[in-house]
């Protein structure tokens, strides 16, 4: 009886291992394909006619960072290292500002009580639901009045301006921190400001990491707004527009493999960061999600 139970459990686990294994392969295979082809030697861009590359090379990566192409007669104006640096700077700055605004807004809504609090929360929730394409042109001209169009600062502003609207998850997290802590501190004479910085923030590592992570990734993936703001200023492009440019109809024939290599270069650091921070990400999204 016990033996058969064990056997059944073992069988069930075996099946689960099998399913999970197959799924993992399905999930990872496309990326393996990406990585393999980024090392492909021949000049054929799309439709290479085979699944596995026949010869491997580092040339695509070297070309990518030297801004040349060995299989193009005419060099396109690509400055990948520069774009990478731009994106890194923009992502770093905007993730600091975003994280601060998110924490400020969610602390306010979670802990402070004032008249128009619920109204503000409702407004904030629905503001984010407006499809953004139409507002982009307006944003461009607003930045232009400020003399910021075509500059990296404007990207930082655009990516972090709306961050405060995404307060739900971290508010949910703050809601789970017992209020008794605040009350005790208030009795000891702490102001709200001190409570925020000295009591709540130190306890919020998961949600801080979660917010930092999500806001850090944004700039790496946006290719629409950034394109509008940057126009023809290639020096200030981010990797997303740059990679998009490489598979533009004019360049696809010659730059396709550099696009693959570039994608790998972009994906690797974010993936590593994510894997390292995964634990906090899960904690953050769980704690915030249960209530949010």
């Amino acid at each position, binding site marked *: 009886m016990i033996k058969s139970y064990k056997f059944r459990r073992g069988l069930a686990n075996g099946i689960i291992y099998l399913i999970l294994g197959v799924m993992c392969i399905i999930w990872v295979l496309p990326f393996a394909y990406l990585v393999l082809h980024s090392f492909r030697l*021949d*000049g*054929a*861009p*799309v*439709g*290479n*006619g085979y699944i596995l590359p026949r010869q491997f090379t580092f040339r695509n990566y070297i070309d990518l960072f030297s801004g040349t192409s060995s299989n193009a*007669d*005419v*060099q*396109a*104006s690509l400055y990948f290292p520069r774009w990478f640096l731009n994106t890194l700077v923009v992502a770093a700055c905007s993730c600091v500002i975003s994280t601060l605004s998110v924490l400020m807004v969610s602390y306010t809504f979670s802990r402070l009580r004032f008249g128009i609090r619920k109204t503000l929360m409702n407004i904030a929730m629905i503001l984010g639901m407006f499809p953004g394409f139409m507002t982009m*042109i307006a944003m*461009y*001209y607003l930045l*232009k009045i400020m003399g910021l*169009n*075509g500059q990296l600062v404007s990207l930082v502003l655009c990516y972090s301006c709306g961050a405060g609207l995404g307060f739900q998850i971290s508010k949910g997290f703050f809601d789970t921190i017992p209020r008794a802590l605040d009350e005790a501190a208030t009795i000891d004479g702490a102001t709200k400001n001190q409570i925020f910085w000295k009591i709540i923030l130190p306890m919020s590592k998961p949600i801080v990491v979660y917010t930092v992570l999500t806001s850090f990734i944004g700039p790496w993936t946006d290719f629409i707004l950034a394109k*509008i703001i940057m*126009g*023809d200023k*290639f020096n200030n492009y981010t990797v997303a527009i740059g990679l998009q440019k490489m598979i*533009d*109809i*004019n*360049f*696809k*024939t*010659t730059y396709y493999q550099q696009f693959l290599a570039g994608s790998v270069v972009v994906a690797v650091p974010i993936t590593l960061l994510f894997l390292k921070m995964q634990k906090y990400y899960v904690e953050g999204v769980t704690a915030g999600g249960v209530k949010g």
Partner: protein
Amino acid sequence: MKKILAILLAGVLTATAFAGCGGGNNSKGGASPFGDEKDVTLKVWAPDAAVELTKSQVEAFKEKYKDSGVNFNIEVVAQGENEAATLIVTDPDEAADVFGFPSDQLNRLMAAQVLTKVGSKYAKTLSEEGDNQNAEATIKAATFTVEGEEGLYAYPETNDNGYYLVYDNTVVKDPSTIEGVLSDCKAAGKTFVMDAGNGFYSCVFAFTGGAKIDGFEEDGETQKFTEYNEDEVVQTLMAFAKLMKTYKGTFISNDVASISTGFTNKKVGAGIDGPWDTAANKKALGEKMGAAKLPTVDVNGTPKQMVGLFGYKYIGVNSHTKYPKSAARLAEFLTSKDAQIERANQVNWGPANLAAVTELGDDPVLAALKEQSKPENSVPQVNISGTLWTSFGTLGSEMYKDSWNPDDQAATLALFKRIIANIRDE
């Protein structure tokens, strides 16, 4: 009320502008080609392929005018021509002062009022006999009537923006009929590539049947068509659909980028491609590259010439430029006969300048394009409604589908009528 106000104010403004301008020039006295522009900063957009060339031409321009006393600061920025209109329309102040663009963007640029009219004196030399004369079609396409006044709004740069049949001459023996091309490809186990899902190429199906576009209706935005025989169009469409079915696996609808790739890895025998890929195709095929005008197609026993879009490229002057005179001089310089010859030699662009064409002689690709540019083989790529591309794209992709029955006359007619209605936005 609004209109009256507008006219009144415009009148006053014009008057003051005239007064102001006349006075300004008088005090200067001399007729410098740059007026009173002294420190000139200009931005030029050229596609990546032509950036280096344009830079050297700009240097030559500075050299030519080094005695004019004007301090030039000219920047050449790489900007694909396909995006020129979008960028300049979004924010003309930040865009280039002098920029290259293909003819199908003319209407958008005119609608957004970002092109400066070519000075009438110079415009005249572009259409009169002489070293400056350009192909008539290129002039005609860029001539617009604004507020009752006719004028040329861009400087012709090339007369080559169309597609032609490019083939591996060891595979295709006779490029004159599409049936021949397809059967040769099939016999050699290679494919024939045409981007049938892309309106830019698939308009061929309707044009060949006689449904050619012919500018706009009175309203300036509804696409007009030449008179056509509906039955003839439907028969032609069915002939094309039949070819796709008969040569399934040989007739491939794919991105044009896959043509040069296919030549390299020996999978493609022929394709319909344009000058933008000439360099890549030449590199892939070398001596084996053949080029010809579009072939004929057999419609119920009679061969019909396939008709494609054929456009031109221009250099335009941004109407928001701060230095209109310098920008105009630069545009003139960049489209002169010598500049066009240089461009043909270095980046394979077929000139619009007639003297340049004569001087260059025959290159197989340029010859094929010249043949293709004839009115019986092509429709000018101007005055095109934005709805055309996706609609004709749908026509091609519907016909290319496995499920499409090429013998179904009624369905073909219904599809064609639907497409025309979509283009005309009815």
